[in-house]
């Protein structure tokens, strides 16, 4: 899937006040501009639909969270947020996502590189398969991952033989998040790798660079921003993941309990306040990651000038 490149579209600045014209004329021109500059019809309707639906479906519900969080009060908020179980749950979610994303970065890079560089039988199918974790319902992914990596599963038993438990513990969570996050890295890196001009690599080779050196000094620097973006996207997705994780996680409080699950538990206990606090924290983390991704993309655009 494409990265969040919507946000990199530059916003045209509103009309600057020309110092030559008098204030009244400038205002009149500006007002005329604002009123009649929509040459193509449909501005009011389209913007109206978007703003209304955005408010009703996304913004107002989100504000309910903020409202409720405010209602808990700063001391109440801190009390819940600092409770050991909440901290541990957030820790589990974040740590497993981090490890999964760290695994996915090099693996995703390798896959993107191989799919770009080589043609071989089955390439198209393997390429299409990358999207599976994205298209598969999370509950389906969840139970099948539990089956594969559970103690009696094909891979679970192999790992168990090596003394590694791959289910009902944080390791299982990490494995599930690897499954979920892989497409994010591959699909973010692929378009950038494809863009690298063949001639650039040939030039490097002509100048005597070995393939390895070409990769290091030509290809890798160019795709690094995309790789980081994919990493961050996988990380952000992993922190909030629920369905694919809860079947394989074991869900033991203080050990393998993820933050989204804790929210669900709090709701079932009618502890709306608790759920709100954790939800708010997760929202803040999401936005922080989102912001970071946006900055990454902006600086990538500046330094590498990709279209």
């Amino acid at each position, binding site marked *: 899937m494409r990265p969040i490149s919507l946000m990199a*579209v530059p916003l045209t600045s509103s009309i600057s006040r020309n110092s030559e014209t008098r204030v009244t004329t400038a205002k009149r021109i500006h007002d005329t501009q604002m009123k009649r500059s929509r040459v193509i019809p449909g501005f009011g309707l389209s913007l109206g639909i978007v703003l209304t639906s955005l408010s009703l479906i996304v913004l107002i519900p989100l504000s309910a969270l903020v409202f409720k969080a405010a209602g808990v009060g700063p001391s109440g908020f801190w009390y819940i947020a600092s409770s050991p179980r909440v901290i541990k749950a957030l820790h589990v979610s974040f740590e497993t996502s981090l490890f999964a994303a760290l695994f996915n970065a090099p693996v995703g890079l390798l896959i993107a590189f191989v799919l770009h560089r080589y043609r071989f039988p089955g390439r198209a199918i393997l390429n299409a398969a990358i999207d599976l974790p994205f298209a598969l319902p999370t509950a389906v992914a969840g139970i*099948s991952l539990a089956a594969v990596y559970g103690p009696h599963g094909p891979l679970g038993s192999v790992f168990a033989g090596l003394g590694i438990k791959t289910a009902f513990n944080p390791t299982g969570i990490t494995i599930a998040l690897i499954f979920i996050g892989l497409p994010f890295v591959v699909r973010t890196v692929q378009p950038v790798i494809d863009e690298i001009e063949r001639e650039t690599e040939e030039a490097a080779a002509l100048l005597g660079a070995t393939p390895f050196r070409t990769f290091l000094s030509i290809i890798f620097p160019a795709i690094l921003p995309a790789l980081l973006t994919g990493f961050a996207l996988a990380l*952000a997705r992993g922190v909030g993941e*629920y369905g694919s994780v809860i079947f394989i996680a074991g869900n033991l409080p203080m050990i393998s309990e993820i933050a989204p699950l804790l929210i669900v538990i709090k709701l079932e206990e009618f502890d709306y306040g608790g759920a709100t606090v954790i939800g708010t924290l997760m929202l803040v983390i999401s936005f922080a990651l989102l912001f970071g991704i946006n900055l990454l993309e902006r600086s990538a655009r500046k330094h590498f000038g990709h279209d």
Partner: protein
Amino acid sequence: MTEIQLKDPMRDPIGWKKEDERPRLDGGPIVAGLLISLTAILIIGIIGLPLFAVFAAVLTAGAAEISATLTDPDTLAALRLTLLIAAIAVPTNGLIGLAAAWAVTKYEFPGKTLLMALIDIPFSVSPVVAGLVYVLLFGAQGLFGSWLDAHNIKIIFAVPGIALATLFVTFPFVARELIPLMQAHGKLDEEAALTLGASGWTVLFRITLPKAKWGLLYGLLLCNARAMGEFGAVSVVSGHIRGLTNTLPLHVEVLYNEYQFKASFIVASLLASLALVTLILKSAVEYFGRDAEATNPIIEAQN
């Protein structure tokens, strides 16, 4: 140094055929073979195995068991609900996405960047949080809880709540596909059509949509896959009332938690088949869409 042929490598396969004239950019056939095998193993191992596990359960079950599971009233109810939710969410968000793309790509206005960031919010929020916000709004202890109760309107633990939560998580899908596409198409054709006297609706239906149809289809496809498969958000708002507020993914969980593993996997394979169909259609759309763009190159106006 052997003579170098600067042919487009993407048309000349590397890896399984030896090309002596080409400078060694790929490390040679041995390295190629190793990397390709490693990649295949990784993809099959990480992604393929879980998929296989889903269908393995189906393949080992008898026809009787399969039909019993699929015709079970709770399963059918879950299927109906899933289809209903998709029928609500996909057209609605398709329309909203189209409106968003039109507003963003045909006009300049202050706050455009902010608008696009806001549209993207559901994409980055945890699905459980998406469900949570609706519970906080319409649940028993929610902001509107008592009002709804007084008027005997059920949103949480009922179909409307599920629809809303699904609308939330699938909100950006169509917009995300259409906006970059329509941005690349520009406004020139629309301006030309307007000078010829076409109304705004004519321009939309006869000029803009035909150009954007593959992107729209793609977005609707992804929206549908997510709408049918959504678990976390729906789980929070649904109440898990068997036969009433369980979608197919929730039903999978219910069966699994009751240790009816076979049945759970059978229903799961239904959803997995949907995912596979989505992937196939997605590839088809990419293929046709790319074809359409290739034979009709986009010429950007230089104003």
